[in-house]
């Protein structure tokens, strides 16, 4: 893959920083709500995994499908979602992407091809197969990208869905975000092989391991997988090795070793990308600071938007039940 142009690099950086800051702001707001006696579900943040969503989604068209997970904020933002309605959704407001019905795990934006987060681990994979089927059936070259975790790869749904996609050459990308843990369970305690990517080989499909903390590396493998899918040659399993830098969610205590956390902090995907941008990308430190400041401004506005938004009227709970 040719080196991305400086504009692309800025775009990737901006997206990654947006996701990071979004998660920080969401966490602060969650804690503040908790102190005020309001409990807002679980909140699973994507801190440390930004390079994956950004690397993949920055290559997608608006009409491509993304099927997300319980840890979906990054996927949404990378696919073009606006932090304002996202924070409003987390705050349970009328102006949220799901009008307050969904919350953090259930952000949907059909206009962006975001078919939704999923609170059911492994629940998204058959949906991805169905979206890919639709793309094929309607004769378009759209693709469906399914994000899922190392833990989710242990659900039967992975095998059933991947097999179908392989069998019918469906235009799907299965992106396994192997962040070393499923909640508190280390991947070695749930998976007998080191590389989850290998599972694709059993279905005669490419399974690729990539450094999930390197946005350009993710982009490179995703580009090939997307081209393959668009050309009607079936699914690819990408295993992006990464690390979740925060606890599983707000209600599960940290169980991981401090040394391990420190080790991975060294591999922070944003810091690594910054180093690359400064040393090889031809961007100046000043410029990066400018981008970060802009992101801060965007997020402050997003938070203000959420706070100024009205609460839903409880009487409308039945309103969206039926089409």
């Amino acid at each position, binding site marked *: 893959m040719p080196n991305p142009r400086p504009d692309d690099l800025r775009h990737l950086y901006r997206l990654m920083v947006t996701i990071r800051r979004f998660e920080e702001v969401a966490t602060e707001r969650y804690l503040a709500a908790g102190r005020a006696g309001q409990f807002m579900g679980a909140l699973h943040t994507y801190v440390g995994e930004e390079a994956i969503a950004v690397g993949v989604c920055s290559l997608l068209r608006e009409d491509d499908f993304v099927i997300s997970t319980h840890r979906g904020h990054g996927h949404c933002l990378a696919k073009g979602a606006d932090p304002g309605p996202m924070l409003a959704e987390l705050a349970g407001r009328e102006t949220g992407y799901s009008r307050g019905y969904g919350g953090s795990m259930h952000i949907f934006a059909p206009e962006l091809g975001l078919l939704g987060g999923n609170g059911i681990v492994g629940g998204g994979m058959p949906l991805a197969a169905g979206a890919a089927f639709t793309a094929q059936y309607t004769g378009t070259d759209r693709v469906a990208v399914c994000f899922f975790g190392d833990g989710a790869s242990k659900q039967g749904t992975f095998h059933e869905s991947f097999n179908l996609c392989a069998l019918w050459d469906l235009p799907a990308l299965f992106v396994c975000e192997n962040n070393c843990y499923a*909640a*508190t369970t280390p991947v070695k305690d749930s998976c007998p092989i080191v590389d989850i990517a290998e599972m694709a080989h059993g279905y005669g499909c490419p399974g690729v391991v990539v450094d999930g903390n390197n946005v350009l590396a993710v982009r490179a493998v995703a580009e090939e997988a997307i081209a393959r899918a668009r050309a009607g040659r079936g699914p690819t399993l990408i295993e992006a090795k990464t690390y979740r830098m925060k606890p599983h969610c707000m209600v599960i205590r940290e*169980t991981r070793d401090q040394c391990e956390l420190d080790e991975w902090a060294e591999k922070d995907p944003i810091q690594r990308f910054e180093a690359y941008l400064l040393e090889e990308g031809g961007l100046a430190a000043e410029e990066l600071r400018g981008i970060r400041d802009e992101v801060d401004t965007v997020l402050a506005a997003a938070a203000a938007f959420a706070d100024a938004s009205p609460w839903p009227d409880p009487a409308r709970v039945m309103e969206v039940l039926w089409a």
Partner: protein
Amino acid sequence: MEKGRMRNLTMTAALNTALREEMRRDETVIVMGEDIGVYGGVYGVTIGLQREFGPDRVRDTPISEMAIAGMALGAALGGLRPVAEIMYCDFLAHAADAIVNNAAKWRYMSGGQYALPLVVRSPAGGGGGTAAQHSQSLEAWFTHIPGLKVVMPSVPRDARGLLKAAIRDDNPVVFIEHKHHYTYKGEVPAEEEIIPLGVADVKRAGTDLTVVSWSRHLTLCLEAAEILAAEGISLEVVDPRTLQPLDLATICQSVAKTGRLAVVHEAVLFGGFGGEIVAQVVQECWGDLKQPPLRIGAPFCPIPYSEPMESFVIPQVTTIVDRLRAYLA
């Protein structure tokens, strides 16, 4: 309550005690599920078990609910007494094939050749902004399946005694806890106590109205009874404790005394288990009823995320008080 030393325990501690006691007593009792070993379960019910009984008996599994429930059945067929935890009852949908199509029918299909001493524990319920896929109350699904027992404790004493009975029972038991009730405290006898499945308990005696409820909502009904007592209204609160088998006799006895029935549950009203209780009482106690029974439950929608909508959907103490007062007016 009876004499004897009592301990004040949370639901979590009571359930943990039951597991510990049964594991000490019978080494065929094993426990498995997601994040239940090293971590002790996301709600802490299995805390310390792996330390005491080792990782062979207290197994962390991958995220594979169908295999967890199916393995519990297989292990029961092989002679063990497995207790499987499904992290949220919503994920029972994943495990349902093993439970509904296999566990519930294995004994029957084999002409009664197998005992199936397995327990599937899982927390239900909403109230914390966990939204539609982590908040459901699905007990009615399982009560509809011949071959399954369904247990839903409301207080720590029952939680401990019923879980012990469930583990000793030779049939598949779906044991449903409530995720926002784990910190609820109550007296639990220090000595061993087994509470038989299928026996209801009158949690509060009264004369004006029989209120049947279970799980967390039973305790909300007790709060409502306290409030209404101050207004001179006397509720009799009956806790079936197990929905399958159902102790209809205790409920009917109460209705014969009060002449009125209300059923209160968190689950969606339509098709909810309250309908079954009302139907049975109407058939059995028609002559005793002074007024058509009342049902209180959730409207026919998934649990919405946003707090004002969620508390609107899940019956609150104030709603229960208002509805019961109006019913008796």
